Each structure stands twice: as structure tokens, then as C-alpha cells.
């Protein structure tokens, strides 16, 4: 007799007698054939069983100064997948010379796509960025999201002589490291 376990936020509970089971999955947005393992033996003394599943969508984050398809691309911005609480998963992706960073193997579904969470962890050093958790859903296998990284505001820096009040330094360089 088949038994179904409902998964919520990665966890489900239920009772099964000791036996060997074939495992199938129903997860919106994910490829059911990738459930791993697809067979499990429930044995005495082991009460927790872990499975993984994969998806085949591709999400491109296109990062520009103005958040448009034709804006000046930002190179070197980094992003990472998260959950809704901001916990990070997987490895960071980085924008290329076109301003594109690509999340591969993300879920999509035409009618009930799961939410994909991510956040930007850095820009190129010259642009502001939103480091909060963002989300999107994909109804097609590939999708592109426009991300804006505005140029850092122009600041005025004054350098004067410590011993002669307000005496400006003619020339020099200040280096700011964050």
C-alpha cells in the first residue's frame, strides 16, 4: 500500500513500518525524476531519512546601473540563494561582463511555481545595492530579472593640515577600504 508524506519547509513526518519502499515525489517546480534516493529501506533505530530533488530552470539576474535591459552592466556583483529568512544556500554567483549572473537548476512551473529567494551580497564597489532578501517565481524554464545597482553618490572629501587650521593640502590621495 502506498503512503504519502507531505513535506513543508523541507520536513515531513509520518509512520512507516520497517520495509523497503520505492519513492516518488510530487513537488511543484521540480523534476520528479531526480528524487534521490528513489528507494529507501526503513530500518529499526533510524527515524530520519533525507532526500534531495533537482530542478531545471535557469534564472538570470541582469544587473545594471538603471535596472533596464540596456543599462550599463555591473560586473562583479554577487548573489546567493536563500530561504525566506535569509539563510544562505549553495555557492555565490557573479555577474559577467554583460552584467549577468545565472542561477542554474532553479524551480519553475507554469501554474504553481514555488518562490525563489535570493539576495545580493556585493556589487562592484562603485555601486549601491539592495542586500535584503528578494524573491521571484518562474513560470517558464528560463527567466531574466532586472536588478538595479545605482552609482555611489559623489562625496566631497576635505584634507587639511593638522597643524595649520583649514590649510588645504594641495595634492594627495586618500584610499578608503571597506
Amino acid at each position: 500500500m502506498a503512503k504519502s508524506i507531505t513535506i513543508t519547509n523541507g520536513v515531513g513526518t509520518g509512520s512507516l513500518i520497517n520495509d523497503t519502499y520505492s519513492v516518488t515525489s510530487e513537488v511543484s517546480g521540480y523534476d520528479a525524476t531526480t528524487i534521490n534516493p528513489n528507494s529507501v529501506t526503513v530500518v529499526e533505530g533510524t527515524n530520519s531519512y533525507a532526500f534531495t530533488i533537482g530542478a531545471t530552470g535557469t534564472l538570470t539576474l541582469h544587473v545594471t546601473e538603471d535596472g533596464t535591459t540596456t543599462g550599463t552592466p555591473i560586473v562583479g556583483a554577487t548573489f546567493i540563494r536563500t530561504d525566506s529568512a535569509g539563510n544562505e544556500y549553495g555557492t555565490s554567483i557573479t555577474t559577467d561582463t554583460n552584467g549577468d549572473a545565472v542561477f542554474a537548476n532553479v524551480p519553475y512551473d507554469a501554474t504553481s511555481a514555488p518562490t525563489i529567494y535570493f539576495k545580493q551580497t556585493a556589487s562592484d564597489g562603485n555601486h549601491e545595492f539592495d542586500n535584503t532578501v528578494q524573491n521571484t517565481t518562474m513560470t517558464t524554464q528560463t527567466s531574466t530579472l532586472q536588478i538595479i545597482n545605482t552609482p555611489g553618490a559623489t562625496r566631497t572629501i576635505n584634507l587639511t593640515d593638522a597643524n595649520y587650521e583649514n590649510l588645504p593640502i594641495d595634492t594627495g590621495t586618500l584610499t578608503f577600504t571597506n
Partner: protein
Amino acid sequence: MRRIRLKFLGLGYDRTNQAYVRVYNMKGCLVYRGWTHNNQLYLCLNNGCYKLIATSCTGIIKQCFMVTNNINTYYFTFTNALYNPNGNARNLTFLLTDYNYNNLPIGKGILNFG
């Protein structure tokens, strides 16, 4: 009128996966309705024949039963139950994460064991 127990096999524990139960007398009058708790419920009935309709997420039971002096507990089984009713199943935890993003939990889904 006697206090009897209706015990349902195939439900969950405590308040999880319980059943909504209606009991009718043979005249078709509703004499009890309510939720089970921890697979069972107690009610007071006179001896006689009753019709039970119990609904849970794992199915529905429509069954007549006879209340007699000698029996205090009456058993009913959800045959398509998630929880195995034979008594030697135990609560297990199943984790489902994204294969490509280490430990990323899957928000919603179903695992089928056959």
C-alpha cells in the same frame, strides 16, 4: 445510555490528521458530531444500531455498528491511511532538500512511498 469509545486506525497522533465524525441513529437523526483526538473519541449512546460517517484527509468511513452491553470500544479503519494501522509503525522524519543548493529546504511537496 453508556459511555463508549470509538477508536480509529489510520489517523495521526494528538491533533494531527484527525477525523470528523458523525453518528446517526437508524431513524437518520444525528446523535453526535465532532473531531477525534489522538485517534479516538468518547460518546454516550444507548444500546442499538448506529450509522457512522467519519471523514479525514486519508478517506471516509461509512459503517454501521451495534452498541451492546459487552463492548466498550469500537474500532474503525481508514484503509488508505498515511499511518500504518498495524501498530508497529513509528513516527519518522523525512527531509527534502534541493539537490543543487546544499540544504535548501523544499517549501512544499509530497513524497510517496510504495
